[in-house]
């Protein structure tokens, strides 16, 4: 595992607005898929833009693969692929797009690209990318991004607009694409899409990181369980009523393994992050 992103003492705000990020620190490592969660306006997209050098911090440093992000060094840029939520509009055909952009990415794998397009059922012979639907465009750019073999892949709401089979395909692709040289950051509200693939969960609340834990640590510390009745127990950290009864987050004292429910975890952290912080620090 190699450190690919190192953010320290970051401060950022948009013009004429209050500070969005203050004393923000984050380290990301290769070989991991990171889920970036947070409510609207907490700075997820801003953070991705800062990492990719599209926005500049007021204070602090953002080092990406050894380069200062805001300098947008081409060596850094060919190792960073960012898929924004609002995707790029182009009238090029896939073939033309490849002819133009592949030379910018020396590690591009045409084999991988064709494989991913095939898995997403996208016809490489289409006359223009603009003729694709929003979801198909997204799939095309995801396939292109993964095929660049970039060391850092930043995806902002990648599954918005994807149909159900494509979401499944997306998860398989992510699991397939991750390796020791690559780090993937996925910012999303669609937490179900992340549950099976993330290695690390990062949560933003009130413009700061309130939770940053590996999936393994989460499973060691917490049990996700459901119950028909509301149980009163000191070990229960958080409980919420759903259509299937009560979903509960319980302190794991027995070493029992359970499947992570990111939505429940997110709600629990937002509700009482001090208790969870204490639990993870203990």
């Amino acid at each position, binding site marked *: 595992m190699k450190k690919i992103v190192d953010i320290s003492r970051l401060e950022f705000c948009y013009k004429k607005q209050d500070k969005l990020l203050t004393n923000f620190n984050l380290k990301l490592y290769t070989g991991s898929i990171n889920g970036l969660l947070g409510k609207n306006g907490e700075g997820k997209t801003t953070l991705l833009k800062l990492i990719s050098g*599209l926005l500049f911090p007021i204070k602090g440093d953002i080092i990406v693969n050894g380069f200062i992000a805001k300098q947008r060094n081409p060596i850094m*840029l060919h190792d960073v692929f960012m898929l924004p939520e609002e995707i790029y509009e182009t009238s090029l055909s896939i073939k033309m797009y490849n002819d*133009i952009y592949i*030379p*910018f990415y020396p590690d591009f794998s045409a084999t991988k690209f064709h494989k991913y397009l095939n898995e997403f059922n996208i016809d490489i012979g289409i006359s223009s990318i603009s003729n694709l639907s929003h979801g198909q465009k997204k799939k095309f750019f995801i396939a292109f991004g993964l095929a660049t073999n970039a060391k850092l892949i930043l995806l902002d709401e990648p599954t918005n607009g994807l149909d159900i089979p494509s979401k499944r395909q997306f998860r398989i692709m992510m699991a397939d694409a991750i390796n020791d040289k690559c780090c993937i950051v996925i910012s999303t509200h669609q937490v179900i899409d992340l549950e099976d693939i993330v290695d690390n969960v990062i949560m933003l609340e009130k413009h700061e990181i309130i939770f940053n834990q590996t999936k393994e640590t989460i499973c060691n510390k917490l049990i996700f369980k459901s119950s028909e009745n509301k149980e009163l127990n000191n070990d229960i950290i958080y409980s919420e009523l759903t259509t299937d009864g009560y979903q509960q987050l319980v302190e794991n004292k027995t070493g029992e393994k359970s499947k992570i429910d990111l939505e429940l975890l997110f709600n629990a952290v937002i509700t009482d992050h001090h208790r969870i912080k204490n639990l993870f620090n203990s």
Partner: protein
Amino acid sequence: MNIDFSFRRVGLLLKRYFFENLYREIMFWCIITFTFTVLDNRVFVLLVMFVSGLIYSIRLQKELMKGSNGMHYFLIPATHSEKLASTIILNTLYHFGMTFLSYTIGNLLVILTYQFILKIPVPVNWDLFQNTTLVNSSGFFQPEIKNVFWSVFGLFAFSQSLFTLGSLYFDKNVVTKTIFSVLGIGLGLLLLQLLIFKTYWDVKYLSNAIFPMFVVVSDSTIPGIFKTTFLVGSYLFTPFLWVVSYYRLCEKEV
């Protein structure tokens, strides 16, 4: 991948532009060519070139540097200097060359139409870059034809560099803000210049011009070194604006 200036990457950026805007470019230059078949007056052609040039320049910056397209553009693994170079090539060299080509094609179309269909011989109009002035020669005024190609190109490059910088600085109302900024700065510099000239050499005459770089320092009391400095300065102004644009591009956020 190296970070030195790469002509290959500039070429790829240009290729990207042409592939993405192929139909629009064809349409635009066809319209311009057709316009020149109807109106080939020298002043009109130059006016079209300057106005379309600034619109082209602003559109280019707007398309490249805003929203999702802007994000995509800034994330292309090329240096800022390569990105700026491709922009300058497009909005200055290419636009100038294409206007000249459209003018030539428009002219030829008219001539060929007259000669082959109407059988009327029409002389070829090649005076786009020729300026005729009357010169007093031994008491007689005689027309003198000057080739002003480089002057027109220099002025066009200057105008384009101004609007490139303007569109990098201002997000909205680029034309108005750029023009007012130029007028404001130009007027300020002119006043400063007048003050210096008046104080040190009691200068009586400067030719009329807002922008001091274009002021012809015609008063003989001003030392030659200053005239030379202003002349050199006028040539360096466009590259200076490119350098400022480069730094602005480096600090541009999307």
